[in-house]
């Protein structure tokens, strides 16, 4: 049986598809008995889903800023 700490670590890794199969098995087994880790895993997965949703379709603020600075340079020349 793995500890909650380890379970959390595996949960994080699997959010980035970096957990091995064996780790995932251990993690699943742990969440059978541990309601807290189960809830945490649910929240963690939801967080990933939310970020993916935005990431897929929106510009991040740093990307927007880089577009903006390139554009403003041209705009200054223009006016």
């Amino acid at each position: 049986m793995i500890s909650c700490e380890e379970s959390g670590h595996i949960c994080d890794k699997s959010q980035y598809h970096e957990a091995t199969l064996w780790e995932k098995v251990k993690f699943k087994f742990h969440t059978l008995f541990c309601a807290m880790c189960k809830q945490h895993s649910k929240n963690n997965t939801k967080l990933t889903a939310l970020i993916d949703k935005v990431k897929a379709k929106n510009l991040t603020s740093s990307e927007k800023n880089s577009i903006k600075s390139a554009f403003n340079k041209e705009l200054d020349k223009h006016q």
Partner: protein
Amino acid sequence: MPNHKIDPNKWIDLYSDYLFNYTITRVNDRVIAQDLVSETFLAGLKSMKNFKGEASERTWLVSILKRKVIDYYRKINSNKGKAEVRMSYNSDNETEGDWLEERVADPFDKTAEDQIENTELADAIDSCLSKLPKKQAKIFEMKTILNYETETICNELEITSSNLWVIIHRARVSMADCLQNNWF
């Protein structure tokens, strides 16, 4: 038909998300989509005098973007493209963007609500991210949003991978807490 005005000062704030959204579904690569959007704004600026005000600014920008996307595919496909019949509507820069306005429709935007929700969510994530400690936020962003490899981040910031995972874990817990109220 109402006469639309053109004002490039607000373009980025108003349309960059929309145009990016439009592009990313067509080229499926963030960096390229970003470049195309950026080029579109610059091209729009250049050919501003051709804007007749018959369509809205956004429609007009989308029409430029459409052509940028087509050009992009032509370029990466140039060998195949040699065998194709090329059509060039406007070869000189003088009239760039001239014909497009009449040809592109601005269809009823059934994703408008999605777009608003998406923007709100993006803002929420941004504001939560800004509440994290700087280092956490930076690492979280590199890992989650920019999709850097664990190894790359570790090398760049000179931390060990277990270090990184602890930071990621803390960041994720705080982010989940922060978004809990409205988004879970």
